[in-house]
């Protein structure tokens, strides 16, 4: 069943409404339908409007044309059932890791109005999540005391604490080294199995997309449109060993061919 539906979506940046001809067309005629609990990846060259699609789904920007529906309702304001994570961990440096993770509970209802009563419960909730990503011993640390990979783990916990139905990830592992990144693929895969939420992952790393997602959509260079959708029929959960299997490599190669030619020899 379709959960998130984008129909003929155009988005123009820098048009202040008066001159629709001006501004940059960031996304053009995007059609996308995402099922409940699906893990979907968007790949494409940089600046192709991948992040913009995430903002459209989150309701942070409104399309200039077309419609964005979540759960059969038009998205007209920021959704509150969304968790977001970015390349930059954006943890609050004045809070320890546990309090950082608990930030959404101070904002999203119904947690917000029950903060005092549920204090112990919320703490447990944060610590359960932190344990899931291997940060049990770091709840009391300050963000700067953690490495980049650990900060990203904490950020994933913050994105999930209020049990959102949609998790939007904008190149969350792009700034990490390869080994750390592969570790976090496992972490994210586990979190998905644990939470069963719908995940949209924006990445430019094709192996990451194939490793994690059930469906990979390839976007063209600006103005971004979806030029290829491919379902990944790998046995789940994926392991590092499967990334060396011929079928995995073949999937990555097929996607690569759609991104546009690299430098010709």
């Amino acid at each position, binding site marked *: 069943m379709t959960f998130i539906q984008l129909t003929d979506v155009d988005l123009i940046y820098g048009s202040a409404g008066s001159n629709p001809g001006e501004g940059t067309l960031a996304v053009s005629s995007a059609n996308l339908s995402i099922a409940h609990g699906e893990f979907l990846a968007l790949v494409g060259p940089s600046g192709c409007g991948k992040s913009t699609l995430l903002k459209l789904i989150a309701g942070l920007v409104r399309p200039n044309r077309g419609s964005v529906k979540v759960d059969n309702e038009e998205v007209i304001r920021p959704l509150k059932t969304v968790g*977001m994570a970015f390349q930059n961990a*954006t943890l*609050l440096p*004045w809070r320890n890791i546990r309090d950082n993770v608990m930030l959404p509970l101070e904002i999203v209802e119904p947690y917000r109005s029950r903060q005092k009563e549920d204090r112990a419960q919320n703490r447990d909730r944060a610590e359960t999540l932190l344990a899931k990503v291997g940060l049990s011993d770091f709840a009391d640390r*300050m963000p700067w005391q*953690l490495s980049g990979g650990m900060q990203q783990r904490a950020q994933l916990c913050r994105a999930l604490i209020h049990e959102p139905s949609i998790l939007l990830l904008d190149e969350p592992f792009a700034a990490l080294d390869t080994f750390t990144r592969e570790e976090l693929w496992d972490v994210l895969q586990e979190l998905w199995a644990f939470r069963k939420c719908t995940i949209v992952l924006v990445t430019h790393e094709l192996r990451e997309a194939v490793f994690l997602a059930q469906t990979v959509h390839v976007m063209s260079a600006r103005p971004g449109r979806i030029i290829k959708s491919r379902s990944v029929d790998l046995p789940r959960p994926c392991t590092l060993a499967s990334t060396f299997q011929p079928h995995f490599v073949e999937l990555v190669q097929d996607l690569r061919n759609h991104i546009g030619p690299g430098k010709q020899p």
Partner: protein
Amino acid sequence: MSANSLQRLAPWLTAAVLVAAWWLAVVAFDIKTFVLPTPWEVLKALYTYRYALFINGLATLSTTLLGFVVAVVFGMALGIVVGSSRLAYSALYPLLVGFNSVPKAALVPIFVIWFGTGTVPAVITAFMLSFFPIVANIATAFATIEPELLEVMRSLGASQRDMTVKIGIPRSMPYFFASLKIAVTLAFVGSVIAEIVAGNNGIGNVMLIASSNFNVSLVFAALFVVGIMGVGMYAIFDIFERRMTAWSVRGSATLQQFGG
């Protein structure tokens, strides 16, 4: 002597060297007392006029702090507004810069026309000199919040107030305390200037009377009192800053970084 205790002694040592050089110069060039008194004469003046200096010092201190407190409240509010809204920023910031470039001493006579002589012009001058660094720092802190963080907050449905309370204000604290240290010293400058031009009490007034009597030793003694009060206030806010914004000072010796 360890490097640490040397560092602690350093400000006293430089002060002592400076005083010694001053003294030496006065003696060596045979400078008249009414031009430049020796440190010893200044010290004598401090003692002789201790009562007047104390009373007027207190007056200056309270005037300064009053103007300063108003500047903190006003500066913080204005800084939040200017830093949160791009429209407010472009509407107000150039005006603030222009306003801050006006020599405040030149405004004191106008305040006297409006409010009469005495404490009010001094409070206003102290306020006017000290609010700008606070506005500028708070506005910077608010305007430089990471856009991703704002997106996280907006996607959670956070209101403008949530963002100000949960992100903006805590984030601006290091900037705020840094600006307080500057602002409080400027507030002293403001109140003393106003007292010199139009005061009927305060350290500035003492200086005015003393210099018209060629009592230069007393002028210097009064300057010394202002300097001490400035350093004292600076030190107090320095302690506050360390207490309240420890998170922004990374890598203190007791903490260690984790890999992984």
